[in-house]
């Protein structure tokens, strides 16, 4: 068993080097496939991440209170609202606290607000929702509560954004699935060319009494090695590209919109496994399919 494995490995490697052009073509095509696949993976993961953040950020309702409402009264309103099952958390934000947060959200440019003579913000309640579906109801109740001046809730906007991100994700998934199928076809065709070039060879092997696995072994190894090497190539390039993209996004202008990407280290550690398992299964699967009909001698 061990001997057959080492035989398959040695023969597979030898063959990779003997048919250099074939190997190169296969490596390039599989890596290219994986690379494109990886880009859609980046897109999908980041869109997912952003839509999560948008949901987190916008599942709050801001309830601005009339100036006459004292803090004690505000707490009473908060208590009565807190009974609603749609509400996860409710917090009283004084106008001073509100201004401070506002300054912080402007970051380095916060000093611009120092020029204000008077705090323009009212006292408010910040309601965190259990989930977005209860938002409408809670907003409505708040509007009719005495002492409430205005209610700020971005439901329609959030829904629009979520529809768009959902569509992007679905599209990315479809494209990824499509690319996987395409790469299996590409690999099985390249391996088929190798196998066809060796049709005679395989026949001869069978004449000498080689078992099917003895013939398959080296070719399978070849496919798996090609898949694995391509995965590494694609990974190296993706790593580079994603690093660049993240670099571009950490630009100040974009920071202000709170557009952050998923940490490269985190994304890459899952990407290497995805590429490896995909590359290897594409290689193995591709070579097995292409061999099927040649083994019936």
């Amino acid at each position, binding site marked *: 068993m061990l*001997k*057959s494995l080492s*035989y398959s490995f040695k023969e597979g490697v030898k063959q990779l080097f*003997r048919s250099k052009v074939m190997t190169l073509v296969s490596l390039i095509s599989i890596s290219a496939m994986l690379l494109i696949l990886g880009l859609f993976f980046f897109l999908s993961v980041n869109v997912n991440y952003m839509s999560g953040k948008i949901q987190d950020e916008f599942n709050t309702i801001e309830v601005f209170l009339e100036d006459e409402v004292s803090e004690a009264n505000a707490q009473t309103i908060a208590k009565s609202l807190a009974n609603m099952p749609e509400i996860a958390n409710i917090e009283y934000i004084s106008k001073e606290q509100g201004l401070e947060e506002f300054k912080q959200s402007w970051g380095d440019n916060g000093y611009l607000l120092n020029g204000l003579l008077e705090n323009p913000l009212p006292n408010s309640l910040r309601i965190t929702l259990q989930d977005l579906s209860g938002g409408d109801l809670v907003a409505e109740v708040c509007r009719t509560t005495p002492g409430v001046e205005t209610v700020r809730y971005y439901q329609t906007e959030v829904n629009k954004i979520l529809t768009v991100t959902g569509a992007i994700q679905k599209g990315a998934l479809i494209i990824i699935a499509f690319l996987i199928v395409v790469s299996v076809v590409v690999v099985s065709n390249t391996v088929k060319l190798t196998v066809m070039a060796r049709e*005679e*060879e395989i*026949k*001869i*092997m*069978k*004449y*000498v*009494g*080689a*078992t099917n696995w*003895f013939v398959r072994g080296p070719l399978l190894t070849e496919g798996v090695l090609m898949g694995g090497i391509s995965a590494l190539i694609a990974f190296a390039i993706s790593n580079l590209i994603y690093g660049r993209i993240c670099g571009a996004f950490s630009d100040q202008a974009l920071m202000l919109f709170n557009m952050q990407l998923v940490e490269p280290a985190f994304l890459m550690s899952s990407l290497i496994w995805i590429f490896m398992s995909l590359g290897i299964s594409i290689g193995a699967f591709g070579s097995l399919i292409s061999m099927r009909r040649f083994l019936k*001698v």
Partner: protein
Amino acid sequence: MIRFEHVTKDYDGKRALDDVTVDIADGEFVFIVGPSGAGKSTFIKLITKEIEPDEGKIFIDEKDITKFSQRQIPGLRRNIGMVFQDFRLLPNKTVFENVAFAMEVVHYTRRTIERQVPQALVLMGIPDKADMFPDSLAGGEQQRVAIARAIINNPKLLIADEPTGNLDPSTALEIMRLIDQINKRGTTVVMVTHAKDIVDRMDKRVITIQDGKVVGDQKGGYGRHA
């Protein structure tokens, strides 16, 4: 060694072998002759289970191979050395690797392989060609490599389908001498040929096939029926 009992083989309704019954003993040397399309190669392919008969039984070494499963075929072929008109060497393996391949298939150790392959090459008269690739060899030399590969695992049976078909007469004669030597060491030989002079000269058992039927089976001499 080989026994055909009422074997019939059709290709898409066209009869290639018709009720053939033949018995070949251990250690025999048998020529199979007959006109083109008579069914000689069909006879050979049935022995190696490359094709299946439509009727009848085929025994190799007293075992009915028509009952063999797909998985038993490699085992069967390992005990049969095969030589063909077109040599059938692996083009991207050296002479040494081609012969060694037949041993690797049966999982011999590297050490055994490195000892036995050179011996076989010496026996075939081509010890100096070990590192060459088949297409740089002359036809006769390629056939010697093929024979070395066929006998490297000491098969009980050597099958040759027109092994001299692509060779000039004097080279053909040398190849025949080698095959005869192999037979003298105890290997049963079944050889298909069109070469009348060789058959006449060798004076062995000759089975003549015509239109899928055995029409002659006697000692020595070609062509009394063909």
